[in-house]
């Protein structure tokens, strides 16, 4: 088998090259190819194993194909009838057995990883329990042990296992933070899913919804913010402080209470959960999950700008979302700007 010999020799540099290529692919906070936590590492390990095996297979097939196409091309004047070979028992057994072996090589670590991924840490005292609820088109995060709820930004302590319980109030969604872990669907009650991951390094990771859930499915993003243990405790403390901060102007505060708090909550005010909880929204990574807060304006705009964009016309930011247009709720442009300013300054740090 001269050809396979060649293939093996060529294989080494190709795998190394592919390794580099893959490692350089995509953003660190987003790419599956640059895993930032054990769960994503485990998937990535299997991906590397399977792609290596598959590249070997491809090289063999491509080399044989190239060889026969060149070598057995019909030449001018070639007219004798080629020998009509029925097949070859030996060869056919060979290419039954070799794939079978390759499959077994892949199947064993796969099965191991499947069971490891099934470990959901739901009964682990050290794990942080978070109930994730998908809504068209936003994410709600409830810390069941602490009695607090937030939205769009999931704050977690670095290195700790987070035990998730996933559900949805409307259609199916899928909870996915590519650089930290594979995805898991949010099903309605009765088939609640559990899984777990951790983020050893502090940082902000991009999360996505991966199951078609309506027009703004592509905009149903969120952020996972991995912070130090102290920062996490401090954040918990502030979230738990019962008093809500309301606009200073009493008239505006009344408007806010009447129109906005019928769906949203801030601090101890209202707890219906029809819209995202707004406590401390000024310190979040994004508005509506996709308007990135960035004072420098490189990758987005300031919180206040983003809030204004959203409040002036939510429909144009996220088509089909379920928040009424504030103008239809009777808010004037100045009131909208006032609320945007108030929310932008409602920070936890």
């Amino acid at each position, binding site marked *: 088998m001269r050809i396979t010999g060649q293939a093996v020799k060529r294989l080494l540099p190709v795998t190394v090259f592919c390794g580099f290529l893959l490692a350089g692919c995509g953003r660190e906070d987003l790419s599956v190819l640059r895993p930032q936590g054990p769960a994503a590492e485990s998937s990535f390990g299997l991906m590397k194993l399977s792609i290596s095996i598959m590249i070997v297979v491809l090289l063999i097939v491509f080399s044989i194909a190239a060889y026969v196409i060149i070598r*057995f091309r019909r030449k001018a004047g070639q007219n004798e009838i080629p020998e009509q070979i029925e097949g070859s028992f030996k060869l056919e057994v060979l290419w039954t057995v070799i794939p079978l072996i390759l499959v077994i090589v892949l199947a064993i670590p796969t099965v191991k990883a499947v069971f490891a991924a099934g470990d959901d840490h739901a009964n682990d005292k050290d794990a942080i329990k978070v109930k994730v609820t998908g809504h068209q088109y936003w994410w709600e995060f409830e810390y069941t042990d602490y009695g607090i709820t937030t939205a769009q930004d999931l704050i977690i302590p670095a290195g700790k296992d987070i035990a998730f319980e996933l559900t949805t109030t409307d259609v199916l969604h899928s909870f996915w933070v590519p650089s930290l872990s594979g995805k898991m669907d949010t099903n309605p009650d009765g088939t609640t899913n559990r899984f777990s991951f951790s983020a050893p390094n502090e940082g902000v990771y991009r999360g996505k919804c991966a199951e078609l859930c309506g027009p703004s499915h592509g905009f149903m993003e969120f952020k996972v913010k991995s912070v130090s243990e102290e920062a996490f405790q401090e954040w918990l403390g502030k979230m738990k402080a019962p008093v809500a901060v309301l606009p200073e102007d009493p008239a505006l505060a009344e408007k806010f209470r009447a129109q906005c708090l019928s769906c949203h909550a801030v601090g101890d005010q209202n707890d219906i959960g029809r819209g995202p909880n707004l406590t401390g929204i000024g310190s979040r990574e994004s508005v509506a999950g996709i308007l990135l807060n960035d004072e420098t304006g490189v990758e987005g705009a300031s919180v206040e700008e983003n809030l204004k964009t959203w409040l002036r016309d939510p429909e144009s930011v996220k088509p089909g979302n379920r928040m009424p247009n504030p103008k239809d709720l009777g808010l004037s442009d100045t009131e909208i700007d006032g609320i945007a300013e108030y929310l932008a300054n409602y920070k936890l740090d």
Partner: protein
Amino acid sequence: MDWITTVDHKKIAVLYLWAGGLFFGIGGFEALLIRWQLIKPMNNFLDAQTFNELITMHGTTMIFLGVMPIIFALMNAVIPLQIGARDVAFPFLNALGFWTFLFGGLLLNLSWVMGGAPDAGWTAYTPLSSTTYSTTHGVDFYTIGLQIAGLGTLIGGINFLATIITMRAPGMSFMRMPMFAWTTFITSAIILFAFPAITVGLVLLTFDRILGANFFVVGGGGSPVLWQHIFWIFGHPEVYILILPAFGIISEVIPTFSRKRLFGYSSMVFATILIAFLGFMVWAHHMFTTGLGPVANALFSVSTMLIAVPTGIKIFNWLFTMWGGQVRFPTANLFAVGFIPTFTMGGVTGVMLASAPADFQFHDTYFVVAHFHYVIVGGLVLGLFAGLHYWWPKMFGRMLSERLGKWTFWTFILGFHLTFFLQHFLGLMGMQRRVFTYLPNQQFDLLNLVSTIGAGLMGVGMIIFLVNIYLTSRRPADAAADPWEDGRTLEWTIPSPPPEYNFKQTPLVRGIDAFWKEKTAGHKAMTPAEPVGSIHMPSATILPFLMSVGIFIAGLGFMFSRDEFRSPLTGFLFNNYVVTAIGLLITFGSMLARSLFDDQGWHIEPEELEGR
């Protein structure tokens, strides 16, 4: 009129081809719109709702109305010829199958002009596809349109099973049957077992939507995950319904142009059966992230990986068919040879997807989009192109232009790889599928741009193919009976295009590749198995067409039965199921006519046969 009443398998093949081509064109146009929208981040060429309708209709149209009918076209055109039969077992049903498919497809596409296309993805996952979240009639068009079209497929499948079991020429044992006949046989068997599942699923979903049932509604004790199981118990075998015929085509084209018999024929047959069997055991690999738990995920992972084994057998057998042969590369064989590495790449990513923990990352991303297009377009569509170029002279009596054919091949395959190869990386870099746009600065921009350019190139390839067909149709029909000169199977023993009765005398088959065997024995034609005699032909009839029109009307009537209408008359007609009843009356009336009036058919007498 001739075309509406025909029951001749060759004409029905042409009907399938044109109808399939039309829908394929619509689906392709939809694909180009989708790609145009994704050419740059935050593009606003399409709005989100329209985009979701487009991906839903693109997927649904391509799978059910685009490639399946073209497969059926080739089966209809070739299978009776390959097994030495004068028609399919039930010519009347054959026509009925075509018309129900066509009217189902038309009904589905009517949704574009009747208030909103389906928008829940071609998988129509509940609850997104329920009336609560999909408020137009879109999904009703989906359930009822597919139901009607699916009826046609089921009828076609049963017909081919019966044809292949009962109508093979004398001497053609199963193990002497051409590979395309084999894959058609197995495909039909899969249809027989898989389509009832989707039929049931669509009925349940229709009841949920139109009659307010609760099969998939959590509040009413139903389960959305149940829909996924039903859908994929059909949906995964469906993938093999698509790819096995392509395997068959490749197994015909490569031997012919290598002048060698198929390497490892019996292992090919065995592998086909094994693939079909395993195809039914792996549906839940579409549902790894649904939360089935580690035991189910492990089982479905391993069973899926096993499919790589019979598929591998096939690929190496094709390569070794060429080994030691004299390979020529007319367009048909270019497509067939291009199929092998391209399809292998799709198969390889399939094995990667089978590993459940890795699939937690791949699932519902552009990696999957790349994978299934490698299999469906890089596999099936290349196979169909090979088959169409190969059998075109037999179907129409004209050779397609080789020069244009080569242009078609190169633009199409280059465009294809440009479009879909990069999408693997898009998925791995975090781009989920079915998104109508994406934020900038995620390193998705360049790859999406290139992908769209590739899609344009594929469009160019398709246009060249259409031009080729048009120019060819204006040339005289002068193709030889065996235009490739190395034809191995029975269809090449009769004139191109074949006479209405196919075989004047049923041939006697003495081995695998019957015609080749006779040729190498020095004979110019097959030995007949019977004397020239009177040939019995079925009569043309309009009843299949009428029956389908009836079902179409009934479907529309049922769909709108709960609507409020401005005009009281329309309201009365629809809300009291009058329209539905009229439709059903037409259908059952035609059935009654069919059973009451016995039609004996007609005969072609020997004198006439000799006269031609």
